[in-house]
Each structure stands twice: as structure tokens, then as C-alpha cells.
């Protein structure tokens, strides 16, 4: 079953100096349970692609279907709801909410959705990403980078989304911690979650099963590591 389907997706940024084609006629489909990496030189359109899949941005042309729902022409509230319920984000800079504790950060998406038992599930998720329950009381600035990224992964999983999107999730971590986080993502994938990781690091890509190579906004090559 397809969880992401892109059909001839093009994204053009209009700038005063002219327009930039960040994505050029990209077509791809991703099945449920895939673990995909997106690689390519800087400026090749990786983040743009991820933003479109993540319903943060709209393509200039082309069709985007996420979890069976065509997102073209949806309003802000509907897109927000898709992001809340169907997508989990992991960022390079961790991006936890500084006023919330680690546990509250994990609970937050569930509270937004109006789920009951968010505290219980939050604690469960905290344990599942390998963190002590005590650390749940810490604010993000009282956690190490690796710990913050674990909390971010737990937060991404909170509403049991269809897809996890991670833009250079190990970009701010050392090799050892990067491996820990990738191991965590791999385990998550093995439990059936679809994951897309943008990375420059071949080591990171080696954890995934399929790689999209982007060059100048085009899918240059689709490789399979397995």
C-alpha cells in the first residue's frame, strides 16, 4: 500500500533575480513500512521535497497524495491536522519546545489531538526511546543533544503517524550518538513505521533500505541498500 505518492511534482521559488526550480518534475511512490534516505548535494532540493511530503509546503505543480489523501488545494487547518495526525517530524536542531519538559514535549501532540491517557503513553514512549523516566522532568536545555533527539523521536511517534520525516537528524550529533539515533529509527521502522531521512552521511544512508539521489531538483538515481 502506498503511503506517499508524488506525481510530476515541481516546486519553483520566485525570486527577484529570477526563479529557482527546487524540484523538477519529481515522481515517486513510497510503500508503507519503507525506510528511505534522500541524499544529494547542498541545494539539490532535499529539504524542499521533505517539506512537501510533510504538508509544510505546496508544490507549484504536480500531485501529492499522503496516506491516501490528496493534499493539493487543502486549507491551512486541514494541512495542520494532517501534520498533527499523520506525520512525525524529527529536525536537525531537535526543536523541542523550551518551556515544556521532555515528557510534556512528547505529550504535546497528543494533547493537541485531544487524546486521553497522554501522560501514560508519554512515559511509555520515553522508555521506548531509551530514556529514564526521571529525565522526563528535565527541560530541553537540561538534556544532551542525543537525549533531546531521542525525545524528538518519541514526540514524532506520539500520535502514531503514517510517516516519520527526518531532515538530517544526525547533523548535530557525534558519530556514536548518530548511530544510537539511527538504531532507534531502524528499530522503529522494524515495528512497521515508514521513515524518510534526509542526509549527507553515507553511514546514515546505510541504515536505510532505499536511497533517492537528488541532483538539481531531479531524482537522479534510486539505489537499493539492503
Amino acid at each position: 500500500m502506498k503511503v506517499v505518492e508524488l506525481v510530476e511534482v515541481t516546486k519553483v521559488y520566485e525570486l527577484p533575480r529570477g526563479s529557482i526550480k527546487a524540484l523538477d518534475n519529481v515522481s515517486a511512490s513510497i510503500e508503507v513500512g519503507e525506510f528511505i534516505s534522500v541524499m544529494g548535494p547542498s541545494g539539490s532540493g532535499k529539504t524542499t521535497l521533505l517539506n512537501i511530503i510533510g504538508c509544510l509546503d505546496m508544490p507549484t505543480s504536480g500531485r501529492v497524495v499522503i496516506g491516501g489523501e490528496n493534499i493539493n488545494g487543502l486549507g491551512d487547518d486541514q494541512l495542520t491536522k494532517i501534520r498533527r495526525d499523520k506525520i512525525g517530524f524529527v529536525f536537525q536542531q531537535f526543536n523541542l519546545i523550551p518551556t515544556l519538559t521532555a515528557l510534556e514535549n512528547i505529550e504535546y501532540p497528543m494533547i493537541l489531538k485531544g487524546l486521553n491517557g497522554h501522560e501514560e503513553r508519554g512515559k511509555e514512549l520515553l522508555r521506548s526511546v531509551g530514556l529514564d523516566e526521571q529525565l522526563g522532568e528535565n527541560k530541553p536545555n537540561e538534556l544532551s543533544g542525543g537525549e533531546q533527539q531521542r525525545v524528538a523521536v518519541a514526540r514524532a511517534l506520539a500520535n502514531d503517524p503514517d510517516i516519520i520525516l527526518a531532515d538530517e537528524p544526525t547533523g548535530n550529533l557525534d558519530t556514536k550518538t548518530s548511530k544510537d539515533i539511527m538504531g532507534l529509527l531502524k528499530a522503529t521502522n522494524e515495528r512497521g513505521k515508514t521513515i524518510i531521512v534526509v542526509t549527507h552521511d553515507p553511514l546514515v544512508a546505510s541504515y536505510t533500505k532505499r536511497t533517492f539521489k537528488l541532483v538539481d531538483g531531479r531524482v537522479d538515481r534510486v539505489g537499493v541498500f539492503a
Partner: protein
Amino acid sequence: MIFFEFAKRNLTRHKFRSVLAIIGIVIGVMAITALGILGNSVRLAASEQLYMIGNEVVVFPYGEEAVSEDNFKLIEKTADVAIPINSMTDKAVLNGESELVMIYGMRSEDIPKLLEKEDGQFLKHGSLNCLVGSRLADNYELRVGERATIKSQKPRIVGILKERGIGFDINPDNAIIVSDKMFSSLYNSSGYNLVVVKVDKIEDVEEVRKEIEDRLNKKEKVVLVMEMKMIVEGIKEFFNILSMFLIGIGSISLVVAGVSILNVMMMSTVERTKEIGVMRAIGTSKREILRMFLFESLILGAIGGVIGAIFGFGVGFLVDVLILKEASYLFAPSSILYVFVGTAFGIGTSVISGLYPAWKASRLKPIEALRYE
């Protein structure tokens, strides 16, 4: 309420800044509450002091010494009740002390129509006794049965009048009232110093005033006719304007406070751009962002409003006690109202000031906000 919690935590993130914003609101609300209470107290004090009856027309001589007997006859014809009054300032000896007082001479039968008594009785026709005003009685510890001395006469005090306050016709509180007969035995006068006309229906006041003017001021102006209603209304109007003016001054400080809240909230939205981007990305709606920021300004306004109203009430109390020497006006419903008006203005100002920053924050595009460093 997660967004209320966010608002609380975000405000404590920059305690000093939040406290400054709150102080602004406190000062504004305090000014409105205190000045509102002050204005209202002054108004209450004034309406208590002024002896206000709208159905009186008072006739004073104009360019002459007195209203002549003939003119008085003319006035009597137009009016339902016309009370001629003579007055003189003279020395009187009360309880052994000499004092300059006002002495009014009135027809005995007229006295109950204009004045009320506290103690004793009114004057009989042609009586050679006297009545004294309430202040005079208080100050000199005068009692019914004692005697006052005016010139060579020693009238007996047969009654003490009720306090009447400042009036535009006569001011009996610090005066001695004698009969017309007694007055003419004391002073040789012709005509009257003023004539008080009472009209049955308040709607007719204007007409009666006109008629008196027409009849008396035919050839030349000999009397000044004043309508109490007009004066009373003028005074009420004056105090209303005074109240509005004082509240206006208070509002200016609240506007300043509003600008400072706007400033604080703008700073906060800019600083938190990235955070807002993250919140939006992981599924927070525009409405929820808006709500979060509005809660922040609401909390600032509510804290500032309540503290300001309490302080304002305290200042109002001090002013009432120190200047008006009367705390009871403070608890009049129309004074207490300003406590709520002040609080409401404080909360309103701060929510309105927070509206624009909150709207700005909610409109941030998630991807652009995420990229913000």
C-alpha cells in the same frame, strides 16, 4: 488548558519584562479607578451640599437696592407661592460670643414653606423670637429657650433648623431667622432683598420665569430672575465633565501601558518565531497560536487590572478621607463601579494591545518560521 499553561510559562520566562508590562497596566488602572472615585465622590459631596430644588425661581434686584413692594405684588400674581425675604449681615451675640451672622427676615407663615425644623417650633405671626440655623446652633451650643442678642434686642430662640446646605436662594445654616416685623424693627428697609417663587409643576418653571421678566423688566431691567433648575443642571453637567476629564487623564496612562504591552508582545513573537514554526509544523493550528498569545496579554491585563483596582481604591480612600473628610462616598455603588470599570479597561487595553502581535504570530508561515534563527 495547555495554551493557558504555555502563556503562563512564557510570561515567567522573561519575568522582569512581564513585571514592567504589568506595572504599566497597574498605573493606568489605578489612575482610572482613583480619579473615577474622586470625581464621583466630589459629585456626591456636591449634590449633598447643594440644596437642590428644581421648582424654584429666585428674583434678585438688578441695579437697584431691593425688589420694590409694587414689583413684589406683580410677582405674587404670576406665581403660586412667592416668598419675600430680607437679609442683613450683622453682629450677634450668641452664648456670650460675638459673631458676624446673616439675619433673614421672613413672613412667619412663609418659613415652613422653605425651611424645615430640627427642634422647637416655627415663629408665630409677628413674633419677636427667632430661629437659628443648624451650624450656628452646633458651633455655639445653642438650645431652644436661650436668647440671642442682636443690637439692643434679645430674641428668644424658639426653634433650630435642619441643615440645608448651600443654596442659591438663602443659606440658613449659619443664619438667624426672624419675622418680618422683627426685621423691620431692627433695620429700616423698604422692598425685599430677594423673592423666592415656588412653582407647582416643574414644567412651568421656564414659563413663570419668562412671565416675571416680562412684567418687571418692561422699561428697564430691575430684576434678575434665576431658575434653580438651570443652575442645578449646570452644576451636574460640570461634575459630569469633571469626572470624564479625570477618567480621560487616567486613560492616557492606560494607552501608554497598552503600547508597552504591544511592544513586549511584539518582541516576544519575534523571539519565538522559530518556536512558533516548530509548534505549527507539528500540528498546532493558527487559532491555537492566536489563543496562546491572547492568553498572555489577558494574564498581564488581569493581574495589572486587579492590582491596579485595589491600589486605585486605596488611593481613592485616602483622597476621600484627606480632602473630602468623608469615607462614605467611597462605598457608594457609583464609586465602587469605577473599581470594575478600571479593571475592565486594564484587561481590555491589554487584550487589544495583544491582538496585533497574536495575529502576526498566528500568520507566520511554518516553513519560514522554522528557518528563522
